[in-house]
Each structure stands twice: as structure tokens, then as C-alpha cells.
């Protein structure tokens, strides 16, 4: 079993009309065993900015903590909430620093731009290559299955 499949997860982010949605499953397992069923994979990074971390749970927690640390310093220096596009660069940079010994976790970002309110979603690979989505981003061990569903049902300007 691959390291990405050790804990298992399903993550999907979608763009709607002036809104974004981010959903994850809440299973925390070790291979075939389930440890808890109320596990949080979504972390709030700003008033309207969330990141969901897929993959290995320990790395998910480490990356989100380190990200929050850098984010806090940014907001102290800049005295404003971070915009999603800048946050993408922040995530990308953090992951690429570990290019040859990566974190086995991939973030999915969903948020609204603080000034314009424009919806924003992005996905990454484990070394930080960003993929900014105009429709939906899926991730995790059930990523393909979610991709099929999203591809069938998504259309522009879905409301809440």
C-alpha cells in the first residue's frame, strides 16, 4: 500500500455563484482499520479561507501548522488578511522546500478573495505544483470517483 493511501481521505472543492464549497470525509484510519469517524481535515486560515489536507495525517497536521505560522507572520507584517492567490504561493513554497523529501500530504484551498469576494479554489501535488481550478478540485484516495461525479453534475453559477 502506498504512503498516500495509508490514512485515506476524500476531498472536494467547488466554485459556485459568489461562493465556494469545501468538503472532506471524516474517517481517520490506519490502512484497513478505522480509528475515529469524526476526524477534522479542514483548517481555517482566514475569515474566508480554508485549506483541507489530504494524504498522511501526520504530515497534514504538520503542514497546516507550519502554514498557519507563516500566515500569521504575513498578516502581522502586512496588517491585512492574505489573499488566496498569495496563499497559493505560500503553500507552494513551503512544499517545494521539501522537494527531495516531501510531505506526503496535498492541500486543497477554498476561499474568497478578501477585497473582491471572488471565489477561489486550488489543488497541489505533494511538492507544491499549484493547480488553480475554475470549476472543481478533487483529491485523496477517492479523488477519481469524486472527479467523475463532479464532471457530471457541475455547471457554472451553482448557488448555495
Amino acid at each position, binding site marked *: 500500500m502506498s504512503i498516500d493511501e495509508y490514512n485515506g481521505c476524500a476531498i472536494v472543492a467547488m466554485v459556485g455563484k459568489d461562493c465556494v464549497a469545501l468538503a472532506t470525509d471524516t474517517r481517520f484510519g490506519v490502512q484497513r482499520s478505522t480509528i475515529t469517524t469524526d476526524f477534522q481535515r479542514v483548517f481555517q486560515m482566514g475569515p474566508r479561507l480554508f485549506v483541507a489536507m489530504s494524504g498522511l495525517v501526520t504530515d497534514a497536521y504538520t503542514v497546516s501548522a507550519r502554514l498557519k505560522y507563516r500566515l500569521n507572520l504575513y498578516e502581522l507584517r502586512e496588517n491585512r488578511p492574505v489573499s488566496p492567490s498569495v496563499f497559493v504561493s505560500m503553500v507552494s513554497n513551503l512544499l517545494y522546500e521539501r522537494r527531495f523529501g516531501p510531505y506526503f500530504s496535498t492541500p486543497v484551498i477554498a476561499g474568497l478573495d478578501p477585497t473582491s469576494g471572488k471565489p477561489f479554489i486550488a489543488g497541489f501535488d505533494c511538492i507544491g505544483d499549484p493547480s488553480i481550478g475554475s470549476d472543481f478540485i478533487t483529491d485523496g484516495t477517492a479523488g*477519481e*470517483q*469524486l*472527479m*467523475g*461525479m463532479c*464532471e*457530471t453534475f457541475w455547471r457554472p453559477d451553482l448557488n448555495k
Partner: protein
Amino acid sequence: NAEYMGGHTRLSEGYSILSRDVERIQSIGKNCVIGQAGFHGDNQFLYKVLQTRAKIFEFDHGQALDCHSTASLLSNLLYSRRFFPILSYCLVAGVEQDSQGQWKGRVYGYDVVGSFESRPCEATGEAGTLMLPLLDNQVEFKNLGPNAERVPLTRERAVGLIQDVLQAATERDIMTGDFGQIVLIDKDGVQQRRIPLRRD
């Protein structure tokens, strides 16, 4: 009382397309079809063997194989190669009469060594995982809320669903595309339809 199977017609090798027009769904007998994903060479070989065995059965027993017998035969054929498998991910679909004379549709899904199961719907191949969740939801009504509409599966809806899943798979899987081959099986036999899919 009817079965529907959809497949695509692209044959690829790595990032190249070898053919845009390969039929993956073929008939066995009057009321049964087999769809095959996986290694094309093994698919062709397996189909020939299965067809020959079906013919031999007809000569020996004076009647054609029905659907569940074809399914069982296929399972045995695959397991006979347990230690050098035929890399063919098969689906057998067809209609057969039950003990009351009612025509019932059945779908059987397989792994490469012949483990099989009859299910209300099944999807296989590279893009199988993209298609199956939608089928679970719209054919078996899985994971729908209590107030959600459960639309009964008429012929038009089934064909529409298959078209939708093929289009969805084509969008995201590089190996899927060109044409979709949709096969309808009922007690009167097998009908085929082709739909265009994205050619990129």
C-alpha cells in the same frame, strides 16, 4: 427487463492512440454481450475462446447458453489461467428468463482471475472509478436523502445515463474518447448505438 452497456472505441498505448474505432462490446449468443477492458490482445483471445465454447455448448446441448451460464463459463475460463492471468477486465450483460418466465436483465463484473458477481450496475476499466459513483447514485439510488427524487430507470434514462458517464470519463481520462458504443439488450436481441466523444 433490459440491459444496457456502454464502452468507448479508443485503443491507446502509452500516450499514443492506435485506433479510434475498436469495438469493445461483442455478442455472445442472442441475449448476452461481453464488454472487455484491459489488454487488447488478451481481450481478443478471450472472446474467441468464449465464442468457441459457446458454439460447442450449442452443438452438445441443442440450445444456446443463457446469460448466467455464459457468466459462469467465463469465470471458469479466467480461473483456468489463475497463474498466468488473462489481463481482461470483463463485464457480461444480458437478459434471461427466470423461473416464472419473466425476462430479467443482469450484469456480471469480473476481476482478471474470474471472481464474479451479479450486480444492478457495474463499471470497469481505467475510467471505471470515475463512472461508478454516478451509477451507484442514479441506478441504485445509494446515498440519496429521504426526500431526493428517485427517478425510475426507463430506456431513455438509462441510455442518457450511459452517455453522461461516458462523457464524464472522456473529459478526465486521457485513454477514453473518440466514440462511445452503447448496446441495448432485451428479449428481442441486441441493438447498438454509437455516440461521438471528444477526440483529444
